[in-house]
């Protein structure tokens, strides 16, 4: 299955504006997102997943830039686009939902103002129908009494409801790609579940989703393809099924073992020993080598190529775990 490609990152590196590609924070990331595909990006804090997501929409902080590689969105090269051109893409082709819904709405403006802004900007909607469409948008994300909510201020809504409003805003302009940067991290668990249900509904609408999360279980359950990042590098990319059953990168394996299972015997929680690298960009080898139980000498000096082990499964590791194919 190879769906039509919506977004493709080819060897994209992100680094400070002042230095060359060797000092990049995110290095040589390859990724594609197909139309209607849900791609999960997993990694620890500082693994470069959020920066990659920001780069796709041209939202990098002013001090950072894409130092090398190509980024192609809807068959258009977007690597070198100016802020003005990105402005046309954001909110039409790409939309974002960020981590912290508590601060992502302007405290001085009503929910209706927020939604109607988005609708008017992208849809050429006259004022009367914009209001009606805003009500529909709120209803579609499961907000009760949407007519009344239009005149509410953000502080009058709970965190989960604010995230729903933000999702409604992100979807109001019918984007092709929705980038959700840890959309459930700031919410409590029961609310998380309802937000994930909402994302399942978005999937049905044939909108591609890039879903960034710390939560490997959630990603495996919800996404088609999973990308594992560590220390600014892409470690492994595979379908969710392959990651959960036949993952080959030692880091992915270590991550999976950290997830506590209800069926596990009571005991100590599994952890990955050591710390993630702090000074990024100075490591030529694999950033995980220091913590890896499978590390070899070459791991510390050269970063391995991304090697395909099946049509949908690629691993960047010198010494991947050998998996016996299970009959399925």
């Amino acid at each position: 299955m190879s769906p039509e490609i919506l977004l493709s990152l080819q060897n994209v590196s992100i680094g400070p504006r002042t230095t060359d590609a060797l000092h990049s924070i995110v290095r040589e990331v390859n990724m594609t997102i197909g139309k209607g595909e849900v791609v999960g990006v997993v990694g620890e804090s500082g693994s470069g997943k959020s920066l990659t997501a920001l780069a796709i929409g041209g939202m990098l902080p002013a001090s950072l830039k894409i130092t090398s590689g190509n980024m192609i969105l809807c068959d258009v090269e977007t690597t070198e686009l100016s802020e003005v051109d990105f402005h046309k893409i954001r909110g039409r082709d790409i939309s974002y939902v960020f981590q912290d819904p508590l601060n992502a709405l302007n405290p001085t403006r009503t929910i209706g103002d927020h939604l109607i802004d988005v609708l008017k900007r992208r849809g050429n909607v006259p004022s009367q129908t914009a209001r009606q469409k805003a009500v529909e948008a709120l209803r579609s994300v499961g907000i009760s009494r949407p007519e009344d909510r239009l005149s509410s201020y953000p502080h009058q809504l709970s965190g989960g409801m604010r995230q729903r409003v933000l999702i409604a805003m992100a979807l109001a302009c019918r984007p092709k790609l929705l980038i959700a940067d840890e959309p459930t991290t700031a919410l409590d668990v029961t609310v998380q579940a309802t937000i994930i249900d909402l994302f399942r509904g978005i999937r049905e609408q044939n909108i591609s989703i890039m879903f960034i999360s710390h939560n490997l279980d959630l990603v495996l359950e919800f996404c088609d393809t999973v990308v594992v990042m560590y220390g600014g590098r892409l470690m492994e990319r595979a379908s969710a099924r392959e990651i959960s059953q036949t993952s080959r990168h030692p880091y992915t394996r270590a991550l999976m073992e950290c997830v506590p299972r209800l069926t596990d015997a009571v005991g100590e929680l599994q952890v990955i020993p050591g710390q993630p690298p702090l000074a990024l960009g100075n490591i030529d080898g694999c950033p995980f080598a220091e913590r890896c139980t499978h590390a070899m000498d070459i791991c510390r000096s050269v970063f391995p190529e991304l090697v395909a082990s099946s049509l949908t499964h690629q691993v960047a590791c010198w010494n991947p775990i050998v998996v016996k194919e299970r009959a399925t």
Partner: protein
Amino acid sequence: MNVTAAPSFLGRLRTYPSGIVGALIIGSMVICGILAPILPLKNPLALDLSQRLMPPSFEHLLGTDQAGRDMLSRIVWGSRESLVIAAGAVSFGALFGVTLGLLAGYMNGTVLEIVITRCFDVLFSIPLLVLAIALMGILGTGPTVVGGFIIGIEVKLIILIGLSFTPALGRLSYASALVEVKSDYVRAKRAQGAGWAELTFVEILPNAIPSVIVQATLFIGVAIIVESSLSFVGLGVQPPTPSWGTMLADARGYIASGEWWIAAFPGFAICATVIGFNLLGDVFRDVLDPRAGAISSFV
């Protein structure tokens, strides 16, 4: 959870007694000023030398000045000059200052930011009264003709005093914009395709404006004092037009000789207006925040 709309602006203002006092003082000043032509007042310019330096009486409630003009009438008519110049100057300063300050804050890290903030610094370094006296001395107190437009003394005072308020109000909004431009909601809006103009004036402005409004109401008091000071030294509103400053200036020769009412009532009017605006400014800070009514609306 029962979400009710936050109480209206006036509804919240009611819960602050000092705000009511301030609003009453300013409100009555403004109403008297607007209604001056139809109030049963004596002509503020009519000289009546037989009635000069009369103490307050039933005929002249606040007495008469050295030319026999009715003090009450002159104070009411003078409030028009003082309030219009003060409000105009602060609006002018706020318009310029806030626009430039927000732009500088939004364009954080660019040359534009440096240019704007340095201009603020230069203006800020010149003392207000010295600048005003120097410029009025150069421009003169008569009407100036600029490209076919006759610029009267009031407009000159508005621009001059307004200009000196620009850096303070500009820095205030610049500081707010610096904070807000990095906030999550600005980033979220930007991610949904909002451009710089919308981000600056639709998203950031409402969050920066409460502190500016508080400062601006305080500045109205300052503007009244500056206008009075300029009029006092003869560089402001010109006689015979009544203004509180010129009235005080006229009165200074009579303070020692016992005609206290000529100086006291214009001075009292200035004090009351400044205090009124200060009280109002304090309350605005609390009232203008839509989050302020949050707790009561949940109970």
